[in-house]
């Protein structure tokens, strides 16, 4: 979705026009077969009974509670991720300290680890058989695994890189002169952070957080292990779709799938629009 500068090879000698058509249609065929047809089928299936029927399936008690749980855990994750991601990027760009290289590497770790493995890790650490899990349950009567806190933790783990990696490059390019100017004018460092640094970072923070939110809506591997599959309590939208598919309830599965897809696509398009606008602003 990036804006690509126009580099064409159309006037390169010796490239026959049929080669150009051939390669373009190969690309279109590949994307159509792989992506567009499967996506079209799900919309066709879910909208067969019209929007009313779709609405009815999604608002049935179990589906509705799964959707609500997904949305609030994802939103909470996005907020925490925005704050901690910005802070992590700030520390990585502005400070030097022993172990900085390691911290920088840890940020990318969640991208390399399968999400199912992430779920297993959290169960080992906080599950009922673990030391911490048992202690929390006995002392505080607090459950992490098979409950919403586990879902939020899993989402935080999986989405940790997104805000950090969106903010980091912008912070690196940020002009230090305006900060020095603000300091010369008597602004304290807290004021400088809020009034000078943060306004320049809101776009990468927002796009990183929203993208992680979009991904969180569909997260399955980490959650199905951590949250279990308890309807009305710890069942998220993706786990709900899985259950409906297993029990051959096409109506429910298709309806929820369409809602998830629409939400995620809208968010991704919105982030794309934000970034384009940001680029235009900085060009002016």
């Amino acid at each position, binding site marked *: 979705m990036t804006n690509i500068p126009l580099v064409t090879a159309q006037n390169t000698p010796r490239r026959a026009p049929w080669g150009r058509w051939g390669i373009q249609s190969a690309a279109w065929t590949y*994307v159509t077969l792989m992506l567009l047809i499967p996506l079209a089928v799900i919309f066709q299936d879910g909208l067969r009974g019209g929007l009313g029927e779709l609405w009815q399936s999604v608002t049935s008690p179990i589906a509705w509670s799964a959707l609500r749980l997904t949305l609030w855990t994802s939103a909470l994750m996005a907020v925490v991720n925005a704050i901690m991601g910005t802070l992590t990027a700030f520390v990585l760009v502005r400070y030097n300290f022993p172990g900085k290289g390691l911290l920088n590497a840890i940020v990318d770790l969640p991208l390399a680890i399968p999400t199912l493995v992430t779920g297993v890790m959290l169960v080992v650490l906080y599950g009922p058989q673990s030391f911490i899990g048992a202690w929390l349950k006995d002392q505080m009567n607090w459950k992490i695994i098979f409950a919403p806190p586990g879902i939020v933790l899993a989402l935080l783990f999986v989405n940790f890189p997104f805000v950090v990696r969106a903010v980091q490059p912008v912070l690196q390019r940020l002009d230090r002169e305006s900060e020095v100017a603000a300091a010369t004018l008597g602004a304290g460092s807290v004021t400088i952070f809020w009034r000078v640094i943060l306004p320049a970072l809101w776009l990468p923070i927002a796009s990183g957080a929203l993208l992680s939110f979009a991904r969180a809506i569909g997260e399955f591997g980490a959650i199905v292990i951590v949250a279990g599959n308890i309807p009305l309590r710890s069942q998220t939208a993706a786990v709900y779709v899985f259950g409906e598919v297993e029990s051959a309830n096409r109506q429910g599965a298709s309806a929820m799938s369409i809602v998830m897809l629409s939400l995620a696509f809208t968010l991704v398009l919105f982030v794309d629009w934000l970034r384009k606008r940001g680029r235009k602003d900085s060009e002016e």
Partner: protein
Amino acid sequence: MTTLAQPTAEVNATTPRPQNISRSMSAWRRRLLIGIVVAYAALLILAPLTALVSGAFAKGIGASFTALRDPAVFSAFLLTLYIAFITVAVHALFGTVLAWVLVRYRFRGHWLLNGVIDLPFAVSPVVVGYMLLLLFGRTGVLAPVLEALNIKVAFAVPGMILATLFVTLPFMAREVMPVLEAFGVEQEQAAATLGASGWQTFWMVTFPALRWGFIYGVILTFARALGEFGAVLVIGGGVQGRTETVTLFIYRALDERQYVGAYSAALVLGLLSLALVVGTEFLRKRENR
């Protein structure tokens, strides 16, 4: 979103600090912020990782090895590698073609093609599996065709390959595109002027320049394919010995309370993906130096 690809430049912190802040206060704040971030990363990422390692070896290294020597684990690893290799082969070819078309040509629908290839990032893996089931399942749209040709896609390996292909589609194109853009066309034009054919130009001029984008795309695709779970669970069904990949084995083992086997397989899978991604990053950094 494939931010893994960007090596982050180290920024030195020797830039002059605003003078009016007392030095001790800013040092205190610095320590606090670093402390918070390090604690967060350690608790969120490192603690679960350590827990998995200790969980896998809880009954001793011998027990873990015995669990991993289970024939079910072996066949699961074989199937996972098989699917991952086919996925990489398909995407290495078509992903590069896609990147080429998007960077080098302007045409109607360019924005659509460019936008659409990011969609798999936002589609839930369960939904991916379900889509394929709607297409290839017993009551699916293509069921009559498949029956006539006597091909089995759902609850079989071909369906799992398709699911993995869908999920990993963006990586190759998104890694190759920026490198191709940065490379430009001058050297190709020079080669063409000197009489090289299109193929010669591609293999001797363009491809060597794309090498790192290509390798990185392949590694990310492979790592992602190794770890795919939701989509292959729905379309493959996870039948032991037939459509059970490593992730599906882990899922079943947890269900059957074979904890040592599940944790050990999860550890091996996690380390494998990690080694691939970290290893490539290391190689690239060394070459850049």
